[in-house]
């Protein structure tokens, strides 16, 4: 089969799905809440992209994510947060970091944390859940017990435990393990792609990188920043949620007629999964993922608030609020320094609200009783 006919085939088979998406988009446009959510998220995307323009990094700064200190003011008042002025639109927080800068660049941090964590959790949860649901039996039992244990108590506590437990630097041993796992998974994916030529190319590339790592171990001596630890911890705590959802869906779809028909006509297990099961089961996952982005940003902010998240001076909304906690001991002080927590908190709330509105609208739109087939 030539590449061109494959492409034609794909277009034809995708047509009803494209129609369905178009219908979904139309329904989304009709919902005012969804529009508000979309607008909010787009606004944040704009802020994130234009961050270097909106809040330019000072020339002497090494890391754009570290908030700039106002040295001049620091000489006068080394620690006390100062109210908004023309120089500092939102004011400053403790040690005279610029609040405006922190909020703008914090947007990028929020997107990074949310999307990365959700992405990785989704993939892991998808794999585990599909395996458990599709093959059932002992594999299902073992995987689900493991999942249940992780879900067994509030994620915040387990995430806390992981964050403080992780070593700062991942040694070579850890890296090798991660890399091997990643390579195996990608092999698995690629092996079932219909295009053998692509498979060969990717295999060669991966093999080359694996060999080069053995010869140059320095590549993988990664230093985990505190924020990375938070992200890994939340990922570990978060993937079981997706597992349960996808497993339920796979169980529901597994016994449908079209799956049996596909098996009867000789498709491999993986083929059935990728062509029939996944397209019909991922929609609830998308809803969970969208809603999860907000929850993850909130969790990360909470961890930062306690003090085990991003380091001091880092442009992260939760960290900004945390750094000024010492100045907010009594409510009277809170009134005086309102800007230090009001503004970053507003950013967090709006960001999460945008994703929640979107996820909620998605959930209504994907309601199976109203979906047009």
């Amino acid at each position, binding site marked *: 089969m030539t590449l061109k006919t494959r492409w034609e085939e794909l277009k034809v088979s995708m047509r009803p799905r494209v129609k369905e998406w178009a219908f979904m988009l139309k329904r989304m446009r009709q919902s005012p*809440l969804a529009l508000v959510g979309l607008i909010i998220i787009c606004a944040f995307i704009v802020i994130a992209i234009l961050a270097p323009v909106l809040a330019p990094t000072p020339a002497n700064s090494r890391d754009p994510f570290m908030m700039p200190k106002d040295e001049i003011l620091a000489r006068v008042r080394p620690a006390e947060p100062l109210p908004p002025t023309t120089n500092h639109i939102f004011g400053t927080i403790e040690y005279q970091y610029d609040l405006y800068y922190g909020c703008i660049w914090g947007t990028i941090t929020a997107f990074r944390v949310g999307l990365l964590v959700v992405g990785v959790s989704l993939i892991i949860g998808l794999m585990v859940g599909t395996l458990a649901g599709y093959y059932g039996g002992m594999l299902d039992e073992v995987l689900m*017990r493991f999942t*249940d*244990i*992780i879900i*067994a*108590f*509030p*994620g*915040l*506590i*387990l995430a*806390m*435990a*992981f*964050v*403080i*437990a*992780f*070593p700062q630097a991942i040694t070579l041993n850890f890296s090798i393990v991660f890399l091997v796992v990643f390579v195996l998974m990608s092999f698995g994916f690629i092996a079932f792609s219909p295009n053998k030529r692509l498979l060969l190319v990717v295999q060669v590339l991966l093999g080359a990188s694996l060999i080069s790592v053995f010869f140059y171990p320095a590549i993988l001596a990664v230093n985990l920043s505190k924020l990375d630890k938070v992200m890994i911890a939340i990922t570990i705590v978060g993937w079981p949620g997706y597992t349960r959802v996808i497993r339920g869906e796979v169980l529901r779809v597994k016994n449908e007629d079209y799956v049996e028909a596909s098996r009867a006509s000789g498709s491999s297990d993986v083929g059935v999964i990728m062509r029939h099961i996944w397209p019909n089961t991922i929609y609830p996952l998308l809803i969970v993922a969208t809603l999860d982005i*907000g929850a993850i940003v*909130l969790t990360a*902010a*909470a961890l930062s*608030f*306690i*003090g*085990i998240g991003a380091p001091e001076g880092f442009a992260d909304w*939760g960290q900004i*609020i945390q750094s000024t906690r010492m100045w*907010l001991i*009594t*409510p*009277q002080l*809170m*009134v005086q320094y*309102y800007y230090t*927590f*009001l503004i970053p*908190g507003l950013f*967090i*709330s709006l960001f*999460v*609200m945008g994703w*929640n*509105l979107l996820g*909620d609208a998605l959930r209504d739109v994907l309601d199976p009783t109203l979906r047009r087939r």
Partner: protein
Amino acid sequence: MCLMGPRMTSLVAYILRRLILLVFVILGVTVLIFAITMMFPPDIRAYMYIRNAEQTRSNVIQELIDKYGLNDPFYLQYGRWLSQVLQGNLGWSHAAGSGGASVVDSIRAKWPYTFEIVMFAAPIIIFVGIFIGVQAAIHRNGVIDQVSRVGSIIGWSLPSFWVGMLLLTAVTAAFGVNLRGPINESSIGYMQSTGFVRVTGVDIFDGVLNAIFYQGRVHVSAVTNATSSQIVSWTSDLGVSLDALTHVVLPVIVIVTIDVALLIRVMRSSMLEALGKPYIITAKAKGLKKNVVIYKHARRNALIPVATLSGMLVAGLLGGLIITETVFSFPGLGSWAAASAVQVDIPAVLGYAILSAFVFVIANLIVDILYAYIDPRIRLD
């Protein structure tokens, strides 16, 4: 609905089966958390075996490392630690305040403050959530539905610490009152004065109990300013209770706002689904009144998934309380956990994690029992 006969025995058998399963889950959780602690060096881990303050001196720690073989393989250490836990020693928490205390003592001292918040928050979340959810479903797309939907999304999006700070600020700005902490200093002084009996440890209860049972001892008492000996405020037994109550209001509001949103949404969609079921048509065709159809037939079926969620939410309160107690300076289990995380106090984090797992497991058990009671299809599982 009588509980006699075959239905009861099947229910009891079901409960026993779930109990055994849950014991295994708790064990699994302890293994997981213990595994996490293994990432720490032995001298920090030694704190998990300390019983009292004397043992915190450095030479004692080396002895402990040897005694408990903290460099031995994982399963040996786990076994030793588990047997120690079952004897009642959970280690020493140095973040527990005033030089530290044993984990068990810390829990005993701090749980009343957490309980004060939970005992109000949990019922409010459940009952308000169910009520509004049902109403939203019955009057679909009506005012309650739209408002609760938007309110739910907003409530769920707000960071709990931010809401707490906002409320404190607002109350201070509006009324000039400082509602931080579990109780005012004047009440603390009152409670430490002779005659006030600590019955439960929970301020709200103790005040009332003292008022009822320990009448003769202390009546109205004047709290004087330390320097000028002037009377600062009057307080009494009931005054103590009232004071504690007012301080609990804001944390409860914060917790409820965040969690009730989810319950409303789930109750609403579950109720809508139940109302669309065929047996509702049968019920109407029997000539039943609309309220009977809604509340007796639909709602009971709709409560099934909600029961599970309620259990999880209540168990999850322990997690949310970490933040809320910190913001409101409540000296409860939550703020202890937060402080332990920052100060890398392993036994405390470990103890708190095990406690949460325990609570979660008990909550699950209660939910399972409720579930089996409401839905007879489950008992034959």
